């Protein structure tokens, strides 16, 4: 990725004096990253998937605004769409959402000041998902500490609004395009999630989990258990963790 020039004002600039302006600067920052385009394409795919798995438009837009986690949304759509029960879908989504926990934990120290209350952090915490998390690490060091919550809220509102719009566009495209183009829109989801997950792999365990997870699901699905996604996910993830432990075992040169 080309590192885009960051055009935020200097830390002591006039623009940072009001929280409203900090909010506006945050909202405008969504145009400084290629990740916004990736998110846009991803949500077009999610909107189309919601249409073709039989969900309503309002439901799809509400899921983008309130769930605000692409992986959880496609797990929800595709498990429910393929006939899983609500409990099975909820378990799969809950497990996939655990990764939000360390993200929130690692962002909070950047947002806090001595006078910050937990209530002020509720909204920024809701916006945390992988895109905002990456952008906070890139942008927050250039924002004065006492304006970071307003800035993050602006960034979050900007990204969510753009994504809700993309969900709407994707849904309408899937409803109106000829079949082949509709298929091309649906194809955006596996492509963009596969590639963005591959990009986010930081450790050997992540790579093994991705590859094994792809290969194991088709095998497990032959068993027709109804919880195929969970079985293949926990099995592939645990094997990946085992490989990670074995690779990092004491005595092994790094």
């Amino acid at each position, binding site marked *: *990725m080309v590192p885009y020039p960051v055009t935020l004002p200097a830390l002591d600039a006039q623009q940072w004096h009001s929280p409203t302006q900090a909010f506006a600067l945050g909202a405008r920052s969504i145009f400084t990253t*290629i990740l916004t385009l990736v998110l846009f394409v991803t949500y077009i795919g999610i909107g189309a998937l919601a249409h073709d*798995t039989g969900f*309503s*438009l*309002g*439901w799809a837009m509400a899921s983008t605004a309130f769930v605000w*986690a692409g992986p*959880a*949304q*496609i*797990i*929800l759509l*595709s498990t429910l*769409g393929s006939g899983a029960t609500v409990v099975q*879908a*909820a378990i*799969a989504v*809950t*497990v*996939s*959402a*655990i990764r*939000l*926990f*360390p*993200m*929130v*934990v690692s962002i*909070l*120290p950047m947002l806090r000041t001595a006078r910050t209350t937990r209530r002020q*952090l*509720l909204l920024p*915490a*809701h916006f*945390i998902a992988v895109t905002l998390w990456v952008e906070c690490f890139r942008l927050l060091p250039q924002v004065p500490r006492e304006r970071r919550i307003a800035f993050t809220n602006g960034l979050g509102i900007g990204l969510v609004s753009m994504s809700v719009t993309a969900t709407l566009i994707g849904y309408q495209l899937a409803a109106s395009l000829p079949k082949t183009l509709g*298929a*091309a*829109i649906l*194809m955006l989801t*596996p*492509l963009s*999630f*596969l590639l963005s*997950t*591959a990009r986010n792999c930081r450790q050997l*365990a992540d790579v093994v*989990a991705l590859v094994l*997870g792809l*290969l*194991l*699901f088709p095998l497990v*699905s032959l068993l027709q258990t109804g919880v195929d*996604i969970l079985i293949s*996910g926990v099995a*592939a*993830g645990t094997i*990946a963790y085992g490989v*990670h*432990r074995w690779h990092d075992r004491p005595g092994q040169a790094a």
Partner: protein
Amino acid sequence: MSDFIGDWHALLVLLLAGFLPNESWRMLGLWLGSGVDEESDLLVWVRAVATAILAGVIAQILVVPPGALASIPGPLRYGAVVVGFAVFMAARRSIFFGVAAGEIVMLAGKWWLG
């Protein structure tokens, strides 16, 4: 209006299986927020399982395609993903080029097959 949102059952499902699972982890992070080591063994395992679940869903969409995607023959769906991934790696991990290449392969293949 009920067509726009769906029935109350659909909304309840969104709340229970979509909103609450995600928001609880965020709020837990907010409340328990300090002293969690991102490289701890438990989190490595959690991340691996979460990645594998997502990988499984990607495979599910490709193997048991929903809606219009079912009109694309299987080998073409898999081929498009393989080419997309190869271009992604060749283009220094550019998601944009990878997605574009996969889409082009799928559309060109479908056009060629008729």
